[in-house]
């Protein structure tokens, strides 16, 4: 008699707290790209992040093994928006499931529900997250610090690094808690109206800073000059009289249209531009 009671106490899932979610987020944040593989991408990282929570929820070895295994299917997303939100949602769904298992109820959160939720969110959130975090926020910090680096100051490297890491830790923490609180509904919050406004404003700020950087740092000028009936013509001076900064703008817009037509062929663009600039420099036009 006592033995049975003992066992059922042992198998009861523990309650998942805010602290557990924070810990899971930090574990995912650490593991993130370490086990990146061709066939599963970041599946193992998310699983490693959720491990302490799964251990708290599934006290029987077979259920724990099953939980570990179902989180090893293909998974790939962005670290904060995607990984943060999905860690939180998975924790809340697993908690519901563990309760159903313990009480011998029919399982509503089956493997398919768990995986489809993950798969449905990972792409959309990665798209937003990559564009905002890596593509915009990171470069806003760098744009601010670049002049310091050009003066030879260490702060030019330290500022964007520290600022971006703190930003990521904070944003991921926020999304993990949000995901946990809202369960499966978290996605609507992320793509909701207010968030959309913030994303839009950040995009504009990002583009604005790129304009400043382009004007300050792309150096394309003509070294072409010739003498016509005793008068010196310096092409760059003439260009500056009509539209200052026109050559760098032509190069950057040309590349932009190349990317929009052909997709993100960065290697080709790098090599192509190197050849074009090299030839033009060699024949004395640039």
């Amino acid at each position: 008699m006592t033995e049975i009671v003992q066992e059922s106490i042992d198998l009861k899932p523990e309650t998942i707290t805010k602290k557990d979610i924070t810990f899971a987020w930090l574990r995912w944040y650490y593991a993130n790209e370490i086990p990146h593989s061709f066939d599963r991408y970041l599946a193992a990282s998310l699983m490693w992040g959720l491990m302490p929570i799964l251990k708290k929820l599934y006290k029987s070895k077979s259920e724990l093994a099953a939980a570990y295994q179902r989180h090893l299917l293909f998974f790939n997303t962005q670290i904060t928006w995607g990984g943060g939100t999905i860690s939180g949602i998975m924790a809340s769904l697993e908690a519901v499931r563990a309760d159903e298992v313990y009480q011998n109820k029919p399982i509503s959160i089956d493997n398919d529900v768990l995986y489809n939720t993950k798969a449905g969110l990972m792409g959309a959130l990665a798209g937003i997250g990559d564009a905002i975090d890596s593509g915009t926020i990171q470069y806003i910090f760098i744009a601010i610090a670049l002049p310091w680096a050009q003066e030879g100051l260490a702060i030019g490297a330290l500022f964007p690094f520290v600022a971006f890491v703190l930003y990521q830790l904070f944003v991921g923490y926020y999304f993990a808690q949000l995901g946990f609180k809202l369960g499966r509904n978290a996605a609507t919050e992320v793509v909701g109206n207010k968030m959309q406004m913030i994303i839009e404003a950040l995009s504009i700020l990002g583009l604005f800073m790129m304009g400043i950087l382009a004007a300050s740092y792309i150096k394309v000028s003509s070294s072409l000059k010739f003498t016509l009936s005793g008068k010196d013509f310096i092409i760059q001076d003439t260009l500056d009289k009509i539209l200052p900064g026109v050559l760098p703008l032509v190069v950057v817009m040309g590349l932009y249209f190349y990317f929009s037509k052909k997709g993100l062929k960065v290697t080709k663009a790098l090599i192509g531009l190197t050849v074009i600039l090299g030839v033009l420099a060699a024949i004395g036009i640039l």
Partner: protein
Amino acid sequence: MQEMHVTFLQAAIISIWVAMVMSRGLGGATLTLRFTPMMTGLIVGIVFNDIPNAMITTAAIQLIYMGVFSPGGQMPSEPAIATAVAVPVALLGKMEPTAAVAVAVPVGLLGSYLYQLRFFFNTMIMKLTEKYAEEANSKGLTFSIIVLPIICSFALFVPFMFVALYFGAPIIADVIKSNAGGLVFHILNVIGGGLAAVGIALTIYVIGKKSYIIFFLLAYFMAVIAKPLNITMVTYAIVGAIVAFIFVLAKNEAVNSAVDQPRNNSNNNNQVDDDDY
């Protein structure tokens, strides 16, 4: 003559730093460490005891790698690896920052193949992870998910970087130094100055919405006009934030009033209907 060497210790420290970044063993912070050359440049500066010149060169390298990050995990070039080789070469050969950029590009491309090899190792290790998951072996999982991939990446990146730095960098620096001042350098400088456009164009493309290019153009001509005023980046960032805020605010007002309009109309209609009764 002493200056033209990379010491064993210098090569070792930089190699280990690169391995820590590329194995992603420093955690999520390696996202920005791998995609931007800045911190690697600083480390090289500290190791060579020349932070100012290392930072100036790194700033030039950063410009071509603006906007480089990996949607979906693939990346065309490895900024951290490129920097770890190009900055020592620039410091040893006393090169212009823009010329160092031309050295960085091929090294970075090479580095990306190495990173692919890392995925290959991890794919093999995945078999072990599956086995431990089946056994619910939590300690084993930490070993196969965290420890083993880091060890493999170190085995991959440390020797490669060490050879490139200890043997490669002085040779490249030598060759470049003996050609100083000629047409080759003019070409390298032109290429280096223009390649910054790749990173910026990429960022514009990634940030998205075609019609918003107008904000890029606004800022571009603003900066061209205001160049003699030496306005700081922080000031520009504040102006940019204000512009973005005004735009979103105005757009939202417009949307709200558009939503309100028909509602008012239908209310009026209802009132008319009520009167008719």
